[in-house]
């Protein structure tokens, strides 16, 4: 990485959070790693700065690195529709405290993306208005895209069949728990 080729957006981020950011490049695609406390400020800077204008949130997703510490890396992919530029923002969070700030206050579209990341990895988004599972059933006990989760699942077909028939008979109970476990008091964004 040479300083001359670093895009403006990456440099702005590194300057805004001195000593905290780490930039990485792969085939012309840039990623900036930040502590999770800085992510919301960084997203706001990227969106609202008229020179950067990253106005579109492509995706919020997660990767699992069981051998590393902290274990999870949450990734935000942004596009500037006016400039045709892209950037990725990433933040790590540990397994014991898998919480990152929610981007819903900045992009309403982050709602379902974050629900999917929560559903698959168990990463919680502090400040999300309605953090429920979105793909798996509400009472599903595991997070299927974590590396330790077996490909073929944990329940046998017989158990699943019993579960399906039970729920089909009593639809009013089928919704499962209304919401994810409530975040700890200090967790919610103001």
């Amino acid at each position, binding site marked *: 990485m040479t300083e001359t080729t670093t895009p403006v957006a990456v440099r702005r981020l590194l300057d805004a959070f001195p000593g905290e950011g780490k930039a990485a490049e792969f085939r012309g695609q840039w990623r900036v790693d930040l502590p999770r406390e800085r992510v919301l400020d960084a997203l706001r800077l990227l969106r609202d700065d008229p020179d950067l204008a990253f106005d579109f949130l492509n995706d919020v997703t997660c990767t699992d690195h069981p051998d590393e510490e902290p274990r999870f890396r949450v990734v935000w992919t942004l596009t500037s529709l006016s400039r045709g530029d892209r950037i990725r923002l990433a933040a790590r969070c540990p397994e014991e405290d898998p919480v990152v700030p929610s981007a819903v206050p900045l992009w309403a579209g982050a709602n379902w993306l974050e629900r999917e990341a929560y559903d698959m990895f168990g990463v919680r988004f502090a400040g999300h208005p309605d953090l429920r599972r979105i793909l798996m059933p509400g009472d599903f006990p595991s997070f299927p895209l974590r590396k330790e989760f077996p490909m073929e699942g944990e329940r046998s*077909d017989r158990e699943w*069949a019993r579960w*399906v028939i039970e729920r089909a008979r009593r639809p009013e109970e089928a919704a499962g728990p209304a919401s994810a476990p409530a975040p700890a008091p200090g967790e919610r964004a103001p």
Partner: protein
Amino acid sequence: MAGGIAGGGTGSRITPVHVGEFQEEGGFVLTSVDSIINWARKNSIWPLPLGLSCCAIEFMATAASRFDMARFGAEVARFSPRQADLMLVAGTLTYKMGEACRRLYDQMAEPRWVIAMGACAASGGMFRSYPVMQGIDHIVPVDFYIPGCPPRPEMVINALIQLQGKIEKESPVRQILRRPAPVAAAGAGAGAE
């Protein structure tokens, strides 16, 4: 239409027999109740298409004019289980969707039949993974399995014809007589006779 009833029930024990001749408004046909019920049922199988993935596209082809399921009286796809005779599960059934599948089956009036169309509905297909049910027969009884990924429309029609054959061999009268009498609701109608 004169003589419209003749020819039903080729496989049934008692074939319909013409006696006399159809006149303008009169005439009659002698047959067994089983034959006439089976004849009506097998020629009006209204499917409830549970189109869950690519097999549903092939089902649409089966219903459209080139293959034309209407030739077998099965063109009236009903999206209400109350009006359907055949649940045609076309595609990958996830456990979460299995709940809806089972509830639809429970809501269908008897007689009802089920066809598992395609490898996924029959066995889970290539998806040996955590959300996919390994064959719909874990939650509903299946009459016919159609292999293929997806099956050709001819195979769907073949299953339909085989289902007609199965319906022909049923004994609806015996089934109705064997059905337990409905239990009167408490307090209602007690001592009415």
